[in-house]
C-alpha cells in the first residue's frame, strides 16, 4: 500500500510530473526526515538536489580574519584520531571529505565531482557498491594532486586496527578500489542502503597518502603531520598549539570559485560557554562560538544591544528518559540490571505510560531549553517540519493518576502508591549538567503529585558516559530505574539510531556493558523490523520499517523523549555562517562569508 504509492510518486518526480519539493513535503508528512526523503529519491533513481548556495562574495579572499571561539579546545588535528567534536571541527578546517551534509540534509559535493546516483552510475541496484568521481585538478596544500590513491589509502589507514583510528567503525566493513585516477569504487560487505557514511563529514576526511603511507598501523602516532595537517581545505595550516589555538591562512589554490572569503582563520579554545557567548555577542572579540550550552534566558540578556546573536541548526539530537526493563536491585551472576530479571515496577505498562504523562515537556522547554529545544513524542526526530502522524504526547497528572489507580497502584498512608507490597519508588539518574538537574526537578515534582516517589541522582559526566567496566555509575550499566541523557544523531539516517535497541545489543556483563541497548528492551517485532531494514534495499520499504521501529518504541514507552535539541551557536551580526544540524559546525566552512 504505502510503498506502491511511494513508487509512483518517485517515478513522478523522475519524469518531472511531480515537484521534488512537494515529494519531500509528503514524505515529511509520512514521518520521514527530509534527508531520508532525498535519499529515497536518490536510490529511487532521482539525482539528489543540492540546496542552492547563498554564497555572495565574487572574489577570493578580502574578508579579513575569521576568529572562532571553541570553549573546548581541539587537542589534535588528525581527523581519524578525533575523539571529540572539537577535534573533528579543528581537523575539518584543513582536511576535506568527498561530500558534506548541508542544512537541509542534502549531500553537498566537496572533493567529489558529483553526488553518486543511479543515473550517473554511482549507485548500484543491490546497494553493495558506490562509485565516487573526484573533482579533477584538486591539489593538496603542498601542491601534489589529489587522486583515487589517497581515497583508497585513507580507507586502508582507518580500517587497520593497529592505526587505532576512531573512525575504524565506518571503514572496516568496506573496501575501496581504484577504478582510475579520479574514480573510486567502495564495495560493502553487506548491502548498505545508507551508503553515505564513508568519506562524508568529519570522519570522511581524506588524508594524503604521500605523507601518511609510512605511518599506517603501529607507527601512526609518530606521523609529523598529525600536528601539521596538509589537506585540501579552504585554509592552509600555519600553527597549532594543542588545547589552545589553531591558525590558518587562505588557500589561494582552493578548488571552489571565489572561495574562501576570509584571509586568515583562527580557532581559539578553552574557557567556558557563557564567557564564549559574551566574547561573541557582547564584546565582539570573536566572530563565532560553537555549542552554546547556556540557558536561553542568559543568551537573551546578552543579545540585547549586543554585537552578535545566537543561531540554531536543526538535527536529530534527542534528550530523553530511558526506562529500565530489568531489575537494577537484583544481582544475578555478579550483574545488576541483568537481562534475566524483570523490573518489579516498570514491567507494568501502566506505570510506564503514567511516567510518560508526567513529563511536562512544555515546562522543560519554557524554563530550560527555550529556543534551543522542541517538544516531541518521537525518539526519531528529523528536520523542522517533522511531525509523526502516529504518535502524540501530553502532560496530564489526572490521567496518570487514573491510569495508576486502574492498574491497582493505590496510595498508601505516606502518599506513595503501592501494589502487592511494592512501593512506587524510582531512582532517576543523569549526568551533572545544569539543564538536566532542572529537568529532573520538574519531573520529580509531577511524579510526587501522582504518588510516585522519585529519588534523584547525578553523576559527573566523565564517569556517567565512560566505558569504565569497573565503575557502577556508568550509563551503560544503568543501575537505576530511569536515566536521562542525549544521543546525538550525527548523520541523517536512522540506522544507527534505531539498531541500538535491537535485542542483540543489550548491555550485559558478558559484552562488558558495551551493548547499546541500555534499557534492556526486548521486542521481537522491533528486532524483526530492524533486521529487515538493515538488509532492505528498497528505500521505500526500508523507510516504512524505521517508522514502525519508532512507533514500537513509543507504544512500549522504552524511552520518554524530553526535548528535540537544536544546535546553538553564537555568531557576530556580520558573519554569514553555514551550519547544519547533520554535520560539524566547520563542515561547510568554505561557504562562510562576511557581509559588511
Amino acid at each position, binding site marked *: 500500500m504505502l510503498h506502491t504509492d511511494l513508487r509512483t510518486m518517485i517515478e513522478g518526480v523522475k519524469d518531472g510530473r511531480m515537484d521534488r519539493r512537494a515529494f519531500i513535503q509528503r514524505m515529511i508528512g509520512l514521518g520521514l526526515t527530509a534527508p531520508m526523503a532525498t535519499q529515497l529519491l536518490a536510490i529511487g533513481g532521482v539525482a539528489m538536489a543540492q540546496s542552492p548556495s547563498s554564497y555572495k562574495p565574487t572574489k577570493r579572499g578580502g574578508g579579513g580574519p575569521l576568529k572562532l571561539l571553541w570553549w573546548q579546545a581541539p*587537542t589534535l588535528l588528525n581527523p581519524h584520531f578525533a575523539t571529540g567534536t572539537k577535534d573533528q571541527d579543528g581537523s575539518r578546517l584543513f582536511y576535506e571529505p568527498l561530500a558534506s551534509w548541508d542544512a537541509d540534509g542534502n549531500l553537498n559535493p566537496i572533493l567529489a565531482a558529483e553526488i553518486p546516483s543511479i543515473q550517473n552510475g554511482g549507485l548500484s541496484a543491490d546497494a553493495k557498491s558506490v562509485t565516487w568521481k573526484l573533482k579533477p585538478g584538486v591539489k593538496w596544500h603542498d601542491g601534489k594532486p589529489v587522486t583515487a590513491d589517497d581515497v583508497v589509502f585513507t580507507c586502508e589507514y582507518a580500517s587497520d586496527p593497529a592505526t587505532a583510528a576512531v573512525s575504524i567503525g565506518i571503514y572496516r566493513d568496506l573496501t575501496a578500489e581504484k577504478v582510475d585516477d579520479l574514480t573510486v569504487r567502495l564495495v560493502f560487505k553487506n548491502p548498505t542502503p545508507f551508503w553515505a557514511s564513508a568519506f562524508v563529514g568529519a570522519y570522511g576526511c581524506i588524508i594524503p597518502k604521500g605523507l601518511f603511507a609510512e605511518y599506517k598501523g603501529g607507527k601512526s*602516532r609518530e606521523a609529523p603531520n598529525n600536528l601539521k595537517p596538509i589537506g585540501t581545505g579552504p585554509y592552509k595550516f600555519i600553527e597549532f*598549539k*594543542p588545547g589552545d589555538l589553531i591558525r590558518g591562512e587562505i588557500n589561494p589554490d582552493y578548488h571552489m570559485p571565489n572561495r574562501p572569503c576570509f584571509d586568515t582563520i583562527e580557532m*581559539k579554545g578553552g574557557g567556558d560557554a557563557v564567557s564564549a557567548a*559574551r566574547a561573541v555577542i557582547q564584546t565582539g572579540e570573536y566572530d563565532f562560538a560553537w555549542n552554546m550550552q547556556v540557558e536561553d534566558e542568559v543568551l537573551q540578556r546578552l543579545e540585547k544591544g549586543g554585537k552578535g546573536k545566537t543561531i540554531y541548526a536543526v538535527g536529530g539530537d534527542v534528550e530523553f528518559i530511558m526506562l529500565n526493563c530489568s531489575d537494577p536491585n537484583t544481582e544475578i551472576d555478579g550483574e545488576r540490571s541483568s537481562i534475566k530479571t524483570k523490573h518489579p515496577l516498570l514491567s507494568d505498562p501502566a506505570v510506564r505510560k503514567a511516567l510518560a504523562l508526567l513529563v511536562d515537556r512544555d515546562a522543560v522547554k519554557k524554563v530550560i531549553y527555550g529556543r534551543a529545544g522542541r517538544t516531541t513524542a518521537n525518539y526519531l526526530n528529523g528536520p523542522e517540519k517533522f511531525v509523526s502522524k502516529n504518535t502524540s504526547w501530553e502532560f496530564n497528572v489526572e490521567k496518570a493518576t487514573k491510569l495508576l489507580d486502574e492498574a491497582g497502584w493505590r496510595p498508601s498512608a505516606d502518599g506513595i502508591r503501592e501494589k502487592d507490597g511494592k512501593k512506587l519508588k524510582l531512582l532517576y539518574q543523569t549526568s551533572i549538567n545544569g539543564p538536566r538537574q532542572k529537568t529532573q526537578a520538574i519531573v520529580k515534582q509531577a511524579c510526587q503529585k501522582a504518588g510516585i516517589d522519585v529519588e534523584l541522582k547525578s553523576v559527573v559526566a*566523565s564517569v556517567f558516559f*565512560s*566505558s569504565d567496566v569497573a565503575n557502577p555509575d556508568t550509563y551503560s550499566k544503568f543501575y537505576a530505574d530511569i536515566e536521562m541523557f542525549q544521543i546525538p544523531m550525527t548523520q541523517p539516517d536512522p540506522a544507527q539510531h534505531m539498531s541500538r535497541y535491537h535485542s542483540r545489543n543489550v548491555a550485559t556483563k558478558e559484552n562488558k556493558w*558495551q551493548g547499546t541497548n541500555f534499557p534492556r528492551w526486548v521486542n521481537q517485532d522491533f528486532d524483526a523490523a530492524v533486521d529487515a531494514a538493515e538488509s532492505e534495499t528498497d528505500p521505500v520499504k526500508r523507510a516504512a520499517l524505521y517508522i514502525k521501529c519508532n512507533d514500537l518504541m513509543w507504544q512500549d514507552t522504552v524511552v520518554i523523549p524530553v526535548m528535540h535539541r537544536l544546535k546553538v551557536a553564537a555568531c557576530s551580526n556580520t558573519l554569514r555562517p553555514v551550519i547544519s544540524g547533520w554535520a560539524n559546525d566547520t563542515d561547510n566552512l568554505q561557504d562562510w562569508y562576511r557581509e559588511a
Partner: protein
Amino acid sequence: MSQYVLRRLLIAVPSLLGISLVLFTVLALAPGDPFSELATNPNVPPEVGLALRTKFGLDDPIYLRYLRWLVAMAQGDWGFSFVSRMNVDTLILQRLPTTLYVIGSAQLLALLIAIPVGVYAATRPYTIFDQIANTLAFIGFSLPTFFTGILFILIFSITLDWLPFVYSTDIKATGVHWVIEQVRQAIMPVMVLGLFQAASMTRFVRSAMLDVIRLDYVTTARAKGLGQVRVIVKHAMRNAMIPVVTLIALQMPAVFGGAIVTEQIFRIPGIGSLLISSILSNDTPVVMAVTFVFACLVVLFNLIADVLYGWLDPRISLR
C-alpha cells in the same frame, strides 16, 4: 654546605618516589576514561574505545602500569598524551612561557606591593595607613580569584571596553605594538592574581616586621643615632625576611604550576589550564607529568629556602 645540599637531594629521591606512587595510584583508581567522548558518538562502535584502552595499556594492572611509567620516566621518556597523542614534554614546554610570564608577573607585582606596604605599616602600627592597609588586605584575600576575575571582566571589558578578556598567544602586531598588546591582555589576570597574593603577603610581612622591630637591637641601632631608613632596611628587614623567604620559596613552584582558576577564566593557555583539561579528560600521562614536576619543584624550592636562611642569618648553620 655542599655536603648538606647533596644529603638533602638524596633524601628527596625516596620522597619523590613515594609522591609519584601515591599520585599514580590515585589517578588509576579515579573513575573515568580518556575515551569516554567516543562512547557518546554513535558513529563509533563501542569496541573501538575498548581496543584503544587495550592499546594504550589502560587495562593492565596498576602496578605494571606504574612500573612501566617509572622505567620510561627514568630514561627521560615522559610518555604521550592519550587525547592529543603528542609527547607530554612538548605539551608542557609549549605552555611554560605563558605561565611564567603571567604568573611570574603576578608574583612580582605581589612582592612589589607587599614588601613596601607591609614594612611601612609595621613601622607605624595602628595609624590610619596601617588600618587602611590591613582592611584592604583582608578584603583582598577574602575575595576569591574567580570572583574578582569575572568582576574585572564585567568592568574593564564589557562596560568600559578597555581590555580584551580572551588571552591570545598569537598577537598579529610586531615591535612596540606587540609589547603593548602583550601587556594589555595580561593586565587583568596579573592584577587578579597579584592583588590576591599581595594581600596575604602584606599581612605576613607586616607581622614578621612587627616581631623584629620591637627587639632590643633595633632600639640600640636607633640609640646609636642611625637614620630611620638605615635601621629599618639594614637591621630590621634582613631579619624579618626569614619567614617571608619561606613563603616566597613555597610559592615559586606555583609560578611554574600556573593558576588553574585564573587561567580558565581568561583562557590563558598555561600549565594550570593544561592540568585541569587533562584531569577532566582523564589524560593520565599529562596529569602525572605536571603533578610530578610540581612535586619536584616543591622539593627543590624548599631546599633553596633552607640554603637562603644560612645566607640571611649566619647563625643558622647547615650541616
